[in-house]
């Protein structure tokens, strides 16, 4: 890779009391790529993602976005900087409608005095936008855009969260297990969406346990183990069983991969 990474992290350390979640972890994301992050449960994948997306603050280490050092103190700051994240927990408010959830924190106001003085929301515009995004994702089984999210199935909820990130992410989109709860058809749509987003030039970080999915869409695979980056491998030159062997410690990766 000759290009400079769009998102770069060096020596991230995060401890929760006596538990070390990140132990000098490094991370690189290059423009326009899909980077998969794999690792065992408890390897620190989620902590790594949360550190990048501003949800947790690291104890040590530095993160750079487009070469500029960043230090997010909240997810909102990361979002304003163009990093959109779909968390494993989805971060949806169950009693609010699909539309409300998609626009949380960036609501559209009515034009004119109604919007500027009375801060009135433009529900129509938001509903139209939300409906368009969801049908792009093929989430046709949603009956009403004003349904409360709690009335949706697990997969539909995940679809809403993914649609939200894809619609608003401008620099980096992070997806933590985006297909875990999805059906075959919906998973396919999400994978197509991921490739579609990449073709728009936006790089994606994909955390997944689903090896076929990872090997299908990823350009590079970041293997996380015991709180740090073990190696980065190329899915075209490595097999799934190699990846699993590195990730679980059954095999030691070649020197070249570690350096990358």
């Amino acid at each position, binding site marked *: 890779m000759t290009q400079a990474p769009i998102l770069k992290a060096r020596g991230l350390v995060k401890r929760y009391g006596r538990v070390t979640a990140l132990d000098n972890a490094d991370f690189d994301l290059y423009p326009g790529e899909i980077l998969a992050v794999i690792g065992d449960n408890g390897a620190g994948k989620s902590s790594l993602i949360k550190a990048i997306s501003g949800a947790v603050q690291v104890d040590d280490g530095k993160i750079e976005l487009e070469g500029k050092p960043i230090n997010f103190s909240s997810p909102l700051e990361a979002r304003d900087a163009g990093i959109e994240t779909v*968390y494993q927990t989805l971060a949806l408010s169950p009693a609010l409608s699909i539309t409300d959830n998609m626009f949380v924190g960036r609501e559209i106001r009515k034009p004119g005095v109604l919007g500027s003085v009375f801060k009135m929301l433009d529900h129509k515009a938001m509903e139209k936008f939300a409906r368009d995004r969801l049908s792009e994702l093929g989430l046709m089984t949603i*009956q009403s855009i004003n349904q409360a999210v709690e009335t949706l199935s697990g997969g539909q909820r995940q679809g809403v969260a993914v649609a939200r990130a894809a619609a608003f992410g401008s620099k980096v989109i992070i997806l933590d297990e985006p297909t875990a709860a999805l059906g075959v058809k919906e998973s396919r749509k999400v994978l197509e969406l991921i490739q579609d987003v990449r073709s728009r030039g936006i790089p994606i970080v994909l955390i997944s346990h689903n090896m076929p999915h990872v090997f299908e869409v990823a350009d590079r695979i970041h293997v996380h183990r015991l709180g740090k980056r073990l190696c980065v491998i190329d899915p075209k030159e490595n*097999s799934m069983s190699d990846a699993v062997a590195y990730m679980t410690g059954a095999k030691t990766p070649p020197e070249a991969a570690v350096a990358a």
Partner: protein
Amino acid sequence: MSDTTDPGRKGQDYEQDLDKSDVSVAEFKYLHNSPLDRIQHALHGNPTLVPVIVLVAAIGVFGLIAGDRFFSAFNLSLILQQVSIIGILAAAQSLIIITAGIDLSVAAIMVLMAVVAGNLAVYAGVPAPIALLVAFAGGTGCGIMNGLLVTKVKLPPFITTLGTWSIFYALNLWLSGAQSIRSQDIDAEAPLLKFWGIALEVGGARVTLGSLLMVAVFLVLWYMLNKTAWGRHVYAIGDDKEAAELAGIRTDRTLLSVYGLAGLVCAVAAWASIGRVGSISPQAFYEGNLQSITAVVIGGISLFGGRGSILGALFGALIVGVFQSGLRLAGVDVLWQVFAIGWLIILAVAIDQWIRKVSA
């Protein structure tokens, strides 16, 4: 291994028929079997329906029992007057409860600010409008103090406001010297304080400006909660604070604004209470905290946060007023009024639990 990594292919073998999948919007045959199911779903979609039905039913029943004395325009407007102060406090309480908190200090803030405004305007000779502005600022400050303890010190709202309830009450006794400010003195020095006690006579009904103020407070807060982004955030925080934070809401800042606003509404209630009571008594409304929670709960706002309309609290306050008035006119002892309100609370929360099962 190579079959899945082949770049020319799209997807896995088992997915080849996906292109032919059905693309129509899902339609279902009749979902809700029994009428009870349908009622449950209707209520889940529209939780304010319960208090409205109870209110209409209660007015009907007491109209039959107590007859014209209950149904007179005078009596109905009197109920509106009687609930106006607790109603405004319930509006403040609703704001806090929607964020999954609880505020035991609302009435204490109100009485403290009534005493502050009264002392300044009646004894210190401060112009009444300025005295009121000080009270509004003070009420907001009390609310923000609660909010800071909840968001920055991370105390549970129940403990925070249990503590500030005592603190505000003690301050109120200290400032007032446990003495009431007499009605005549207020009339002489600062009649503006009694503004909301002015009554409009319309065909036998006697509607005070304070009753109208209560309705106005509810409408303004309803608008803020339902038509603005801030309001959506308040609901989202009450629903799931962690999710709201991750979704990009500044939860602490929003919570602080909610507590500050609730304090301001309490100060507005303080002004209205001077008009309603006539004098300013430091011992008044000692049960106001719990009565406001009663109104909110009967109004169908969930104590677990994130659910229910603030208008429900208005109906909740009115239901309590209608029960008290109706039972009194029917010649029932006060103790049975209290008994009935107790059952209403339990019934309201039981219905809330039943409605919430829809989503489970």
